[in-house]
């Protein structure tokens, strides 16, 4: 797994997002499921229960793909990276409106944008050929 950047990144990001998703529930007691204002995880990242569930789903998808194969990790890195990149721009138009069902704030945008660049960048740039993918699966 260590020879494939895609598997490494998917596994690490998956574990972190699972942890963040689980930890988020400690800060969202009494917060509405899709409330536009949530609790502050680590004092800065705003989350609501739906946001926590999305983190858990994203984390699970990344972790499973990272532990499975290079092709799965590369595919899921590109998909989640592209969605986060899109969220990076759309999110700013949602904040302050009733459509902000993930209770996004500026620090969330920073984290999503940084995640998007790493996931999409690794997904597009690393493990380009099937040969290298096959090699990595056998290691």
């Amino acid at each position, binding site marked *: 797994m260590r020879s494939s950047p895609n598997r490494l990144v998917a596994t690490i990001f998956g574990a972190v997002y699972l942890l963040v998703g689980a930890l988020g529930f400690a800060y969202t007691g009494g917060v509405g499921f899709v409330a536009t*204002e949530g609790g502050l995880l680590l004092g800065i990242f705003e989350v609501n229960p739906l946001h926590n569930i999305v983190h858990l789903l994203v984390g699970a998808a990344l972790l499973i793909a990272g532990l499975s194969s290079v092709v799965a990790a590369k595919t899921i890195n590109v998909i989640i990276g592209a969605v986060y990149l899109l969220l990076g721009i759309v999110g700013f138009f949602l904040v*302050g409106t009733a459509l902000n069902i993930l209770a996004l704030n500026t620090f969330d945008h920073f984290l999503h944008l940084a995640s998007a*660049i790493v996931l999409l*960048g690794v997904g597009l740039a690393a493990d*380009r050929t099937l040969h290298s993918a096959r090699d990595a699966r056998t290691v």
Partner: protein
Amino acid sequence: MTAAPLTVTAVSRRSTPAWAAVAAWGAGLIELALGAGAITSGGPAWGLGILLIALGAAGLGWGAATLTRGRLLAPRVGVVGALTSQTAVVAALALGPASTSVVTVGAASVLLIAVALACARQSRRRTDAAPPRLSVLSVAALIVAALVTPALSATEAGLLAPDHSDHGIVDPGHH
């Protein structure tokens, strides 16, 4: 198979496409936000908004293609695109100084100049295609996100976002 040891120069050349691609993504996101703001505000900047959105989308596509190929694609076109984008961003500030933040324009300028310089350097010297180092990509992601997030916050869309101190809890269960 063992990899050949990389010199500092080789690592630097190998990292250039990743830096430029990530910078192009950051600039593209800012251009999209500026363009959307110009369109939704109406007025004479509407046409400029369309141009900014087209340039921003092109920047995102160019960055993705550059990372996929592992080398800067069409570097001369990249220089022209970056300088055109720079002109459009400055024009947005000139046409709508009240709705366009200097922070946004400044961040976009830094990223666009970085892309233009990388493309200009590449057009004089061809480099081999190689995947970027994970550490380089991670550092680039953090720097670009740190530049782009406040820039997007300072756009018209971002300014609409209220602070925690000036609005109450919204209960979605009540209509």
